[in-house]
């Protein structure tokens, strides 16, 4: 690990000033950043420790019925907050399907939003990676790429965004509050992350010094609480990133879907909102044929970036399963294996 200066500001304005310098990076819990620094992938000259900034560790119910979550709230605390889990169950389930209990105890809301891709070539300094070193090329294009993107990728980069948390956030129109050199602004989580295009090194809408201070979910998102699930296929039962995941949220009245929210994870450089599929679902009855049609619409623009043709069919099946589970109703308690499509009972079809 390259050495660095360490500063621990006590005000947000002090943090922004310290982090706006070239080569500076914010440190919250560091569960992703320290890993990247140990591997020589991130090489900041200065770490600006934001963990002692006041007022960023609260979960607040807003007067308009929405919820505001401070950027330093830990993933585990958010997932286990009773009001939050009841109101936004797919978000809680996504949080609990990510990482391990130790990491969820440490990792923050802001850090999760900004975690980097898990592309193996990005993580290997001996490989060419346009994201790590613009213009270097992309060894993933002709490499081991069965887990790479099928939507929104470019010749420059086929990496995926690894977050579970962000998938239902995008589906439910979450917004981040950002403090920067020019004041405070708001950005929808859907536009926070960028597709690679010709500049895969630019991963988000953040400018130097920008600090995410809070995340908000609108009160309208509560309307889906009765029919909301997150489903995630992994290569092992627990403690693994998604091969493909889906968040599905429905508002059902008298047997008809009034409103639907859908997003996919593990398929693109950003959490992928599936609006064409939502349009098909609105006004339809919740049955498997409609779900299949919606899933096909969600993936209509997908194309393999390598040995990952299977992810297109897999994503459709996971969307259908997520919709079926959402239509069946949010379980009273998050299942023992959160977001898992697999049963712990051998041979049984899982409908957790």
């Amino acid at each position, binding site marked *: 690990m390259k*050495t*660095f200066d*360490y500063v621990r500001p006590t005000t947000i304005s002090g943090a922004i000033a310290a982090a706006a310098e070239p080569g500076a990076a914010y440190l919250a819990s*560091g*569960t992703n950043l320290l890993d990247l620094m140990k591997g020589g992938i991130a090489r900041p000259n200065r770490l600006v420790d934001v963990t002692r900034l006041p007022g960023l560790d609260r979960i607040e119910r807003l007067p308009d019925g929405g919820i505001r979550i401070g950027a330093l709230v830990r993933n585990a605390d958010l997932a286990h907050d009773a009001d939050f889990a009841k109101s936004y169950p797919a978000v809680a389930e996504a949080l609990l399907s990510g990482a391990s209990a130790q*990491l969820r*105890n*440490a990792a923050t809301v802001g850090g999760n939003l900004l975690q980097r891709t898990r592309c193996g070539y990005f993580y290997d300094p001996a490989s060419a990676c346009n994201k790590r070193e613009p213009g270097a090329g992309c060894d993933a294009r002709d490499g081991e790429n069965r887990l790479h993107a099928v939507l929104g990728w470019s010749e420059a980069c086929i990496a995926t965004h690894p977050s579970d948390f962000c998938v239902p956030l995008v589906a439910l129109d979450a917004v981040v509050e950002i403090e920067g050199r020019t004041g405070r602004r708001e950005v929808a989580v859907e536009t926070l992350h960028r597709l690679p295009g010709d500049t895969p090194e630019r991963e988000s809408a953040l400018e130097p010094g920008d600090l995410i201070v809070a995340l908000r979910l609108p009160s309208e998102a509560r309307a889906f609480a009765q029919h909301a699930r997150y489903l995630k296929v992994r290569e092992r039962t627990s403690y693994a990133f998604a091969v493909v995941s889906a968040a599905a949220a429905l508002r059902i009245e008298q047997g008809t879907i009034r409103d639907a929210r859908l997003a996919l994870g593990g398929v693109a450089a950003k959490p992928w909102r599936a609006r064409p599929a939502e349009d098909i679902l609105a006004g339809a009855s919740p049955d498997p044929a409609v779900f299949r049609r919606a899933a096909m619409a969600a993936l209509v623009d997908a194309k393999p970036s390598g040995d990952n043709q299977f992810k297109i069919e897999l994503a459709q099946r996971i969307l259908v399963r997520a919709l079926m589970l959402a239509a069946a109703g949010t379980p009273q308690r998050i299942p023992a294996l959160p977001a898992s499509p697999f049963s712990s009972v051998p041979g049984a079809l899982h409908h957790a």
Partner: protein
Amino acid sequence: MNLSIGLTVNGVRRDVELEDPRVTLLDLLRERLHLTGTKKGCDRGQCGACTVLVDGRRINSCLALAVSHDGADILTIEGVARGDQLHPVQAAFIAHDGLQCGFCTPGQIMSAIGLIREGQAGDDPERVREGMSGNLCRCGAYSGITEAVLDAQVIVSLVEADQRRTA
């Protein structure tokens, strides 16, 4: 750059001068305080061997910068027994053969203590396995580990109930 931090480690106040901000909490415990019970497995947050409790919560100490934890209260495997009396989780690991080579065991035990404090798993073995999935065991002692955690949880709750009665 000289950075001085203060920590409470296993109930004892420790003041440490750091010449370098790169020191992880894991390396501080092992190299500076010579508490080598906490193990360095992968050093990248993937194996759980370095698990300790920080302010009562289990975390991976390899992915924690020591300097960022100034003022924290740390509990390591060296601090869980009372003299010769093992912690109920330690005793349960022995009783259920929840180990073979023992390298992952301090992390497993600290993680289990954290899991029991979190109170989310109850008596469901599937929830215990899921809650312990951040701790790898290359010897594959998982079935004994699950039994040990379930058993220890009952004993810890009995001990706590007893303490409440006598308090």
